[in-house]
């Protein structure tokens, strides 16, 4: 591990001021909150900041539910949010996504803000033994293209980077139309989570719309009738303690056996948490057991084929709506 100076600022504005001196991403001054991802990056020499600015005790960790929806303080831990009865009851997809993530030990420590900001699991990004990684060093190339890329993105990748976004939580939040409250020296602003992560294009080293120094202060999820009927399915190589091959987050607003509105996002397959508006539109009005309609509601065929080829046949099927919607009577997901 590269030596660094640990800063423990007295309050958040002091922390913001410290971090704002440095650049945008991978800067010589970096934040640490829960630290579960940062510690791995430091240990593997992927990150070598000169100073780490601790956010411990400086950010809100509240979990509040009201008529407007849900507000998660950035410092609330994955374990706290997953176990919150109102989250599990009214926003089950969030609780399910969290419980399918990492391990109890990590969930006790990892925060909401850090989860959304965690770095890709692309093995070439994580292993500095490979020189070519445009995310680590822009212009160095991409070892994953043509390399071992079974887990890399099939949606939103570029010729410069094919890293997949690893968060489960963010997929659930994007499906529910969540927003991120961002705090900087200049004040607070709100960004739709769907617009928060940037696609790699030719600048894969810039991963979010955060300006230098800005932190995530909170995440808000609007109240919506579909939120209560929402689930997270996660296909992975082993049953637990593993990242997703494909993970659909689905929220349905039902009118009897008919889908009034569907919200769907896919995890594990996109360069960022991937909302699929075409699937949502095709599902609106379909019945849960209407096989023909569900077959039609499959505009993700090409990524599904790519996923089936690269990962497994099951992974290819999991991108399509049928496994998580059809045959509600046989499904372990309760939609009605």
């Amino acid at each position, binding site marked *: 591990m590269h030596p660094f100076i*640990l800063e423990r600022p007295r309050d958040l504005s002091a922390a913001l001021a410290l971090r704002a001196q440095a650049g945008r991403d991978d800067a010589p001054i970096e934040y*640490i909150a829960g*630290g*579960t991802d940062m*510690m*791995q990056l430091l*240990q593997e020499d992927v990150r070598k900041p000169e100073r780490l600015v*601790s956010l*411990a005790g400086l950010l809100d960790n509240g979990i509040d539910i009201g008529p407007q929806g849900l507000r998660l303080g950035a410092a609330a831990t994955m*374990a706290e949010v997953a176990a919150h009865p109102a989250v599990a009851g009214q926003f089950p997809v969030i609780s399910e996504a969290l419980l399918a993530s*990492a*391990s*109890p*030990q*990590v969930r*006790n*420590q990892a925060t909401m803000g850090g989860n959304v900001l965690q770095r890709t699991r692309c093995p070439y990004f994580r292993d500095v033994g490979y020189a070519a990684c445009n995310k680590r060093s822009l212009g160095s190339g991409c070892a994953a293209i043509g390399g071992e890329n079974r887990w890399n993105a099939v949606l939103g990748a570029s010729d410069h980077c094919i890293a997949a976004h690893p968060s489960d939580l963010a997929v659930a939040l994007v499906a529910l139309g969540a927003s991120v409250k961002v705090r900087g020296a200049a004040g607070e602003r709100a960004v739709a989570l769907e617009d928060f992560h940037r696609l790699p294009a030719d600048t894969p080293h810039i991963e979010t719309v955060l300006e230098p120094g800005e932190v995530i202060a909170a995440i808000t999820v609007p109240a919506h009738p579909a939120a209560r009927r929402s689930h997270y399915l996660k296909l992975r190589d082993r*049953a*637990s*303690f593993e990242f997703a091959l494909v993970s659909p987050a689905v929220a349905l607003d039902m009118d009897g056996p008919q889908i009034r509105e569907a919200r769907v996002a896919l995890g594990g397959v996109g360069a960022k948490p991937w909302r699929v508006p075409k699937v949502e539109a095709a599902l609106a009005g379909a019945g849960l057991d209407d096989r023909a309609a569900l077959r039609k509601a499959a505009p993700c065929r090409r990524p599904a084929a790519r996923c089936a080829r690269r990962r497994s046949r099951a992974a290819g099927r999991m991108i399509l709506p049928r496994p998580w919607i059809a045959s509600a009577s046989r499904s372990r997901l309760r939609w009605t």
Partner: protein
Amino acid sequence: MDGKRVKSCLNLAALAEGHEITTIEGLAQGEELHPLQAGFIERDGFQCGYCTSGQIMSGVACINEGHTGSPAEIREWMSSNLCRCGCYDNIVAAIQDAAVSMKGG
């Protein structure tokens, strides 16, 4: 840390200042082993011992969190503690035993 299970490898010691830390050395009451430590001996929950400290600390938390309803639930909530000797069946049995005796005690 503060009664919750965390990974020591993902924590900076400097940031643990002021927090209460319990390690495997702090579980026994004098000469009397913690019920889960006794359970690991009774059930042969280890061979080489490399993972045992973590298994027991995690297992105690698993019991305190109330995730011992079934062997499957224990396996899910212990899934990040790996044992290369493959003592999983015996570890699950030790946790089940300790959960019962801790409830009774």
